[in-house]
């Protein structure tokens, strides 16, 4: 079975963490892009096609929640998994209300991460499929063939 790589964007100000996690994800066959702050994350989303963003909540400058809000506003179809270093579930709940797919507590279990990533990827695929179908219906209707 050929694995279709998930296009992951890792956002965290902890460079070492981002690097190691990306190596691991790449080794698993995913396509990984790195960003070290919220601004960078948004710039990359502007240029590249990303399926899932793994987003640290606590970052200097634009924090995770702000970044999440901005992502959901500008790229609503992109799925976001939050990493909370706090151990407080409150922020995670806030994030989910803002449209995040799920959250993980740092240090996260890799298996948990992959399971949640797959779930996020699946939701995005399905959503895209629905959009395609809706567009097709719309086009057909417009050309008067229905």
């Amino acid at each position: 079975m050929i694995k279709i790589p998930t296009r992951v964007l890792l956002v965290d100000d902890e460079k070492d963490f981002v690097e190691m996690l990306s190596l691991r994800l790449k080794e698993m066959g995913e396509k990984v892009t790195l960003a070290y702050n919220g601004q960078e994350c948004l710039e990359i989303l502007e240029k590249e096609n990303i399926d899932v963003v793994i987003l640290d909540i606590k970052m200097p400058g634009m924090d995770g929640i702000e970044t999440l809000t901005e992502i959901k506003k500008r790229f609503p179809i992109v799925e976001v998994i939050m990493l909370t270093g706090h151990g407080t579930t409150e922020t995670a709940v806030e994030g989910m209300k803002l449209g995040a797919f799920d959250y993980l507590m740092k240090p996260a279990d890799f298996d948990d991460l992959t399971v949640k990533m797959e779930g996020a990827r699946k939701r995005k695929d399905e959503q895209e499929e629905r959009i395609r179908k809706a567009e097709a219906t719309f086009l057909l209707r417009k050309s008067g063939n229905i």
Partner: protein
Amino acid sequence: MEGIRLLLVDDEEEFRRTIAKRMTLRGISPEQAGTGEECLSVLEKKPVDVVVLDVKMPGMSGIEALYHIKEKYPKTEVILLTGHAATQDGVEGIKAGAFDYLSKPIELDHLLGKIKQAYDKIRREEEKLREAEFREKMEQQMIATERLASLGTLAAGVAHEINNPLAIIKESAGWMKLILNKEEFAEIPRKQDFDMALDKIEKGVERAKRITLKLLGFARKGDSVLAEVDLKELAGEAIQLVGREAANREIEIVRKMDVPENTIWSDPYQLRQVLLNLITNAIHATESGGEITIKLEVTGENVALIVQDTGQGIPKENLEKIFEPFFSTKSPGEGTGLGLFVTRGIVEKLGGTIEVESQLGNGTSFCIKLPKYLEVKEDLEGNHHADLLDKIVKMG
């Protein structure tokens, strides 16, 4: 007069009996003793509030007995009966700690009056002692709560900082493991040693993670006790504790708490801390002659506790900072800058919110909204179970 435990000491049996009999008619039944020695042995057997003690007795004199009584039972009050024109004895007795003296022949009403005064004094002393103990206990509790809160903040900070490097170690070890398990690495020498060491790293990380999660849990939870809390009573207690300070500054504290329901289900100790902090702040902010109002309002599933003062108010630029830790406008050493920080922490932990409104020169009003019924939030352990359940469901 009832309930006073009295001991009558006189060597003249006839006199003693008559007095005792007449006192019994007035509702006091005194114990009796004929000598100083007998008096002390009665006291040893049962506690007495007031001793009426004849000074002139064979054997141990009244004054001598008085010294013994005051040494052994300092709370017991003594009224001396002196012979006519023997004021010297009376004065000496008062110096030795007697409540007062009466010269014989005595008038019963006079004696009863004195006994009552002595008894009142005992009760006042007891009340003072109780109050002092209560205050001391409260103060200790306050210090402990504040200390816990700052410790909690520190612990949470440390835990968070450690979680990041832990995540790095974990990812690195995980990655190495991933590589080692690839086919091309199947035959490398001493592969088992690597596997073992990586396992140990992962186990170590797990262990450290459990510790940091516990620290974070501690910072959030604390030991709360949930019970039915009568807010009116609670406010009364808080006012009692700070009442003297308010009275010293001529500040009046008014309660407007007459609502049909004034009980909620919450943590009484923490709530009292909150009220104390707010009232103390209000007192410090209010000029003499000012007024502090504590209001209670009920709306739907919530109650609102409002502490309002007529003080100097908080400047706009400070309004956002007052809940931050270590922010204080008092001089260093006077304020910890933790009061409102702790207060907000507690209120939020109790499922409530705190809001402030202030106008320079017109005073400040803090409004706490609390749920009538506080439900225990799921803690970290609970979350863990939820995660597990989630996994099991997904696997199934």
